[in-house]
C-alpha cells in the first residue's frame, strides 16, 4: 500500500456523460425527452452545474452503428458535434467543465487543437479533451484518408498527435498580445513559435492561432484500458475515464495507475480517476430495487436482447424467444466483425458463443436476462437508497479509490434530478462533496496542477511529490 492519499482531500466529484447513443438511455419512458434539442443539453448541463459537478461530457460519433449490414434502429441515436454543442453550453454555464471526446485518427492536429483552444477560451478555461483512437476502414469511409491506420499504430499516432496539440497550445509566448491599444502591433513580432513535425505520423508545419487560456490549455482525459492505453494515459493525460467502478476493482486499478504514474516520472496523484457509472436511486432500498428492475427492462427489451446476440452470431435470430435459452446453433462468422461499432473486435465468435451458452445455462438465465447482465455499464451500477448510496460513496471517498464518478444518466434530460436534489446534499452532509466550486477553471476544480510542461523545475525522480499546485 502506498502511504500517500491518492486523492488528497477525501472527497468525490461527479461528471455527467450525456451518451446520445446506446441502450443505456431509456427512451420508452414517458418523461424521456429529445436527444437532439439543445434544451436537453442545456437542462442536463445546468442541472449538473446546480449540483456542483466538475464536468459535462459528450461522446463523439463518426459513423452510425450498424447491425447485420443495416443501421441499428433500437437505441437512441443522432447526436451533435461535441465541441459545437459544448461551445453553446459554455454561454449558459459558468463553472462546469466541458469535455469533448475527439479521436486522433480522423482529425488533424492543426484543426482539433485549435478548436479545443477555442472552446477553452470561450469557456474561460473549462475545456477538456477526452482522447480516443479509432482505426477501422468502416469509420474511415466518412473521411478523406479512409482506413489508413493499422490497429497497432493507433497509439503511436495518438501520442504524436497529443504532443503536437500541446506544442500548438504553447506556441504563443506570454505577452504575445499588445498590452495596450497604443502599442505598435496587436501581435508582438516573433512571439509565435511555429510547430513543425515530420515523423511517421505527421508531416506538418503549423502556426498556432490562439494564446493560452486561464487554465493554460485544455485538460486531457483518456479512457483506454489496455496496458498500452494505461501507459498512454499516465504519460499524457490528467484524468482517466475508467471502467473500474466497483470498490475493490477500483482500488486495484488505482494501485496500478499510481505505480505507472510514478514510473512515468509524475507525482502519484497527478492522474485522476473517474469511472463511468450508472446511478439508480430512490427513497428506500426496496423502491430502488424496483426501479432498477424497471430500468433494466427498459434498457434491454426483447428486440435489444436478440439484436445483442445477433451481433456475435452474425445472423438473424428471429425465431428465438428472448425469454428462452441462448441459441444452440453456432455463429456463422468466424470472428466478430469489427465494422459494426461495437467494442468486441476480433474475438472468435464460436468460442464466445460457447462460453456464453455455458454461462447462461449455469446461471439459469434467459437471453434477455443474460444480455441485461452482460451489457450493464461497468458492473451493477450504484443502486440504492439516497442514504445508502451516500454512505457507500463516503467509503469511496475515504479509501481514495476514485476521484469521482462520471455518471451516465439512464434518462434524458431529467436523469440527474434525483442525484442533484437528493444525493448531493447527503454527500455534503457527510463532508465528502464540495459545497462550492473551488475555482472557475476545470483544472482548478479537478485539483490538478498546472500542465507538466509549465511546472518549475523538472520532475525526473520517480515518486517525487513536491510540485506546485495550481493555486
Amino acid at each position, binding site marked *: 500500500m502506498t502511504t500517500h492519499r491518492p486523492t488528497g482531500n477525501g472527497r468525490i466529484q461527479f461528471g455527467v456523460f450525456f451518451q446520445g447513443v446506446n441502450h443505456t438511455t431509456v427512451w420508452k419512458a414517458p418523461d424521456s425527452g429529445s436527444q437532439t434539442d439543445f434544451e436537453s443539453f*442545456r437542462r442536463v448541463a445546468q442541472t449538473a452545474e446546480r449540483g456542483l459537478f466538475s464536468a459535462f461530457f459528450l461522446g463523439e460519433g463518426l459513423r452510425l452503428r450498424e447491425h447485420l449490414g443495416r443501421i441499428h434502429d433500437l437505441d437512441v441515436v443522432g447526436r451533435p458535434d461535441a465541441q459545437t454543442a459544448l461551445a*453553446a453550453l459554455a454561454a449558459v454555464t459558468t463553472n462546469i467543465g466541458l469535455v469533448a471526446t475527439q479521436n486522433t485518427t480522423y482529425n488533424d492536429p492543426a484543426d482539433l487543437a485549435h478548436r479545443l483552444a477555442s472552446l477553452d477560451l470561450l469557456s474561460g478555461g473549462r475545456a477538456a479533451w477526452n482522447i480516443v483512437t479509432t482505426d477501422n476502414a468502416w469509420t474511415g469511409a466518412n473521411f478523406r484518408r479512409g482506413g489508413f491506420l493499422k490497429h497497432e499504430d493507433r497509439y503511436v499516432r495518438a501520442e504524436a498527435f497529443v504532443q503536437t496539440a500541446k506544442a500548438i497550445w504553447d506556441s504563443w509566448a506570454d505577452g504575445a498580445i499588445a498590452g495596450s491599444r497604443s502599442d505598435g502591433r496587436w501581435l508582438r513580432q516573433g512571439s509565435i513559435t511555429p510547430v513543425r513535425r515530420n515523423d511517421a505520423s505527421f508531416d506538418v508545419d503549423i502556426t498556432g492561432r490562439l494564446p493560452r487560456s486561464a487554465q493554460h490549455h485544455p485538460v486531457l482525459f483518456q479512457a483506454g484500458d489496455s496496458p498500452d492505453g494505461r501507459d498512454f494515459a499516465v504519460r499524457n493525460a490528467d484524468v482517466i475515464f475508467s471502467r473500474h467502478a466497483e470498490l475493490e476493482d477500483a482500488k486495484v486499478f488505482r494501485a496500478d495507475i499510481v505505480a505507472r504514474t510514478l514510473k512515468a516520472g509524475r507525482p502519484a496523484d497527478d492522474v485522476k480517476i473517474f469511472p463511468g457509472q450508472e446511478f439508480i436511486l430512490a427513497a428506500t432500498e426496496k423502491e430502488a430495487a424496483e426501479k432498477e428492475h424497471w430500468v433494466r427492462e427498459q434498457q434491454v427489451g426483447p428486440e435489444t436482447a436478440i439484436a445483442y446476440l445477433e451481433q456475435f452470431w452474425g445472423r438473424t435470430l428471429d425465431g428465438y424467444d428472448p425469454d428462452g435459452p441462448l441459441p444452440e446453433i453456432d455463429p456463422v462468422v468466424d470472428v466478430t466483425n469489427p465494422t459494426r461499432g461495437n467494442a468486441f473486435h476480433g474475438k472468435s465468435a464460436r468460442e464466445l458463443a460457447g462460453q456464453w451458452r455455458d454461462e447462461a445455462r449455469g446461471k439459469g438465465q434467459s437471453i434477455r436476462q443474460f444480455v441485461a447482465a452482460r451489457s450493464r455499464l461497468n458492473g451493477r451500477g450504484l443502486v440504492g437508497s439516497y442514504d445508502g448510496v451516500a454512505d457507500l460513496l463516503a467509503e469511496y471517498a475515504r479509501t481514495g479509490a476514485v476521484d469521482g464518478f462520471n455518471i451516465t444518466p439512464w434518462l434524458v434530460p431529467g436523469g440527474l434530478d434525483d442525484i442533484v436534489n437528493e444525493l448531493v446534499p447527503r454527500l455534503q452532509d457527510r463532508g465528502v462533496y464540495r459545497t462550492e466550486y473551488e475555482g472557475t477553471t476545470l483544472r482548478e476544480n479537478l485539483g490538478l496542477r498546472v500542465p507538466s510542461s509549465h511546472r518549475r523545475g523538472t520532475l525526473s525522480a520517480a515518486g517525487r511529490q513536491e510540485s506546485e499546485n495550481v493555486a
Partner: protein
Amino acid sequence: MPSLPVPENRPNVVAVELDGDGAHPAAWRHAHHLPDGLLGGARISGTVQAADIAGFHLATFRDSRVVDAGTAGIPGRIDAVQRAAFAAPITGSIGLVPEVDTLYTEPFHVATQLASLDYASQGRAGWLVSAANAPEEARAVGREQLAAAAAPLEAADAVEAGRRLWDSWEDDAVIRDASTGRYLDRDKLHYADFEGERFAVKGPAIIPRPLQGQLVVIAPAALLSTVEADVALASAATVDGLAAAASAAAATGVPRTLVELDVILDARGQTAAERLAELDRHEPWTGGARYVGSPAGLVSLLARLFDAADGVRLHPAVVDVDLPELALNVLPALRAAGLVSAPAAGTTLRRSFGLPRPANRYAAA
C-alpha cells in the same frame, strides 16, 4: 426615398460581419476593451447580442487558418463555428453564419458541426463557404496545395457532400415506436455515398436533419459557377460597381444576392472621414466598396442597393463604434421607411431570406 413595397417572399436582408474588433486593421485601437479582451466569451456575447437586439438578420464570423504575422491588425481568432455556437443560446432572432473552409477540412466534420449549430441556434445557422487555398493551410494539415483550378471544384464537392449529409435523415426518421422497440425508422436514413475527385463520404450523418432542413449556404460570387449556394456575396471595388456585381451574381440563378459594403460612420462628434484618417494613419484599409459618411446617407445608399440586390452585408470599420450607430440610426430608419423588417424572435435564417424549407432529396415524393 423610394417606397417600393417589399415583396413578401423576398425580404431585404441586412447582415453584419463581426470578426475581431472590426473590418479596419486598426480597429482594435478604438475598441472599448484591452487587446487581450478580444479572445473570449464576453466579447462574443457583447457584440452578437447587440447585433441581435438591433435587428440584423444575420451575423457572419470571418475565419482564416492563416496567421498573418505581417499585419498590424488582429491575426488571432477563435474558431468561427464555435463563436457562432457560443452566441446561439443567448440570442433570439439573428442568423449565425460562420465562415468555414472547404479545401483542407474534413467535409464530414464540417457538415456535422454546422448541423449542430443549427440545433443550438434553433434554426438560425448558415455556412459562409470559404475556398481560400493558402499554401500555409495545406502545410498545416500535411497536404499539397490544390491547383488554382481545382479549388472551386473541391469547394463544390464539400458543399454537395454536406448537403447530402444534411438530407441523410428524413425529418421523421426518429419514431420512438415502443411497440416494436424501434427508436428509428431506418428506411428513412440514407447513405450519402458522395464520391468526389479527392474524397468520398459514406454517411449517413451522425446527427438528424438540421431544423431548417438545409442550412443557408452563402458563397462569394466567384464560387457560384461550381458551388450550389442559396445566397451570393457580390463585391466591387467601389459603391458604384455594386449594382452590376449583384446583377451578374443573380444572373447565375442563385436564389438571393447580398452586396458587400464596408462602412464607417460619423460618430461621437467626429465625421466618418476624420475617423478614417485617424485609423488609416496606423495602417491603410484595403477593403472593397466603402461608405464613409452620415447614417442618413447610408440609409439612402442602402435604399438604392435594395433595388439591385436582396440585401447587404455591412463590414463596420470599428465594431464598438459603428455597430451602435447602425443600431441607433440606420436600422430604425430602414424599418421606418418600410425597407426592412426586424426578424421575429424564434425565426429561422431561411425565413429571414424568404427561402422555403426545402424538400429532402432522399424522401419518396
